[in-house]
């Protein structure tokens, strides 16, 4: 009986080791071939919605930072030719699960002039990111994920000169982030799996590190929702995907 159990245990163990090696070799294959990319533009179809100006009078420091350039909410930011900024693009279907992170650098979420710069940061599951403050006023950084997803909400203060907070998220989710002290401050941490990109101010993006294959790419905008497109990437070649969101 005892012997039997041992042999079973050994068989399972060797199986696991084999699977491990298999995964390793697969990983190598993928990273060798993942040189393709998906590029394109995200546009707003229609007139840009009016973004309400922000009344920062609660905190004279914040008012001072924008004395000469009044700022507005950033829910929908439209650039040249109707390009939409702060849209996150990620691959929602077709991933093998072995993709390397599309970015090795740490995304930084700065608090500057009582705003989040950038308004939206994207990252992979378990990828480290930094929250920094450039302001001479106290902020509290308060991400509000749904605790049911596996991401746990937390709430930390960052007084002037405070060191950066380093953290990561456990599960894919669009996480709303706010500051309770400055209620207009609002941003997003977009946590995805696999390669991703965020549009620049004119709506342009490039998702790097995509292996050859057929994918569904999803574009996510905080107010306008999501759009998807089917894209086929040939080995090492750039593919194109353009998105258009209807103005509400």
């Amino acid at each position, binding site marked *: 009986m005892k012997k039997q159990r041992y042999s079973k245990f050994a068989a399972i163990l060797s199986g696991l080791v084999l699977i491990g090696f298999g995964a390793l070799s697969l990983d190598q294959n993928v990273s060798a071939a993942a040189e393709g990319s998906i590029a394109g533009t995200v546009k707003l179809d229609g007139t840009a919605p009016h973004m309400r100006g922000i009344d920062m009078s609660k*905190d004279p420091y914040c008012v001072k930072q924008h004395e000469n350039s009044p700022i507005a909410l950033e829910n929908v930011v439209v650039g040249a030719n109707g390009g939409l900024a702060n849209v996150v693009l990620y691959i929602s279907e077709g991933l093998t699960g072995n993709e390397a992170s599309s970015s090795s650098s740490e995304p930084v979420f700065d608090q500057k002039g009582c705003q989040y710069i950038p308004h939206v940061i994207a990252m992979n599951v378990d990828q480290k990111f930094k929250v920094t403050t450039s302001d001479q006023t106290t902020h509290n950084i308060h991400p509000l994920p749904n605790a049911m997803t596996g991401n746990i909400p937390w709430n930390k203060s960052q007084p002037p000169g405070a060191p950066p907070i380093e953290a990561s998220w456990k599960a894919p989710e669009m996480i709303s982030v706010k500051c309770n*002290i400055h209620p207009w401050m609002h941003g997003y941490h977009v946590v995805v799996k696999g390669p991703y990109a965020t549009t620049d101010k004119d709506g342009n993006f490039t998702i790097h590190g995509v292996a050859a294959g057929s994918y569904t790419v999803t574009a996510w905008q905080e107010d306008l929702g999501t759009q998807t497109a089917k894209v086929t990437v040939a080995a090492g070649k750039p593919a194109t995907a353009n998105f258009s969101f209807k103005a509400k």
Partner: protein
Amino acid sequence: MRRKPFLQCSLLMSAAAVLALSLPVRAQLSTVQLQAWLNSPAATSHVGNITGNAKAAAPVYRRYCVGCHGEFGDGNGEVAQWLEPPMYPKPRDFQLGIFKCRSTPTGTLPTDEDLYDTIARGLDRSSMPIWNTFTKDERANLVAWIKHFSPRWQTEKPGTPIQIPPEPEVTPERVKAGQEVFGRVQCWKCHGVQGMANGPSASTLTDDLGRPIWAYNFTDGSRPKCGSTDRDIYKIFMTGLDGTPMPSFSDNIKPDEAWDLVFYLRTLQPHNAYNAKEKQIARQLGLKPVSPQ
């Protein structure tokens, strides 16, 4: 006959696997799952040398807690609809596994002792009474019972309680240093320069679920939400009150400075059982409120 233990073991294992797989996606346990959980070692709590047993708590919960916290622990009991924040905060939603009063860092589960203390202490300025009518065993049993409502207890361990150095002697220097901390980390943004909960951001505060909430008013004689002792106050700002706007300051206030801040906060309160020395020092120093800049 000889194969039986092995069979039982594998059956148990597969049952555990099924449970583990289904738990993270389901907020609520099915009756079968609940029965299995009640018979497992997870259905206990440990508070000092008391061991709480969830099975024993079920009737107590149904008799005393269900009215506000609801049968499913989601804070939606019959009475909940009549509670209007910020005057009457809504009952805790145990399914989220997020608790104000912890000895553990922000974003972690509280310890069994933390939950036990909250039941025993009640929550001032809310509808949660002091449950000192329960025996110690009953309170510990309820702690064990509460833990089946959120899947977080199945996948996470409670956080490691923060280290609190022994409380130093109160001195005028420490009270003054505490006031500097109060100004530096800008407690007054919400609590006001005199601790009257009238800071510039006080009126727009909401909890994680978007419901209005008040900052603590140090001057009205009410008790802090998570306890009145010096250690309790230390814990409140070093761990934060999760689910509320109150953040953790542990990255920005050193343990020694934290005691200074506790002493300064005491000077803001009216005379009570804890602050005779601090009030006297404040009077001698002629302490003026910090200036908001």
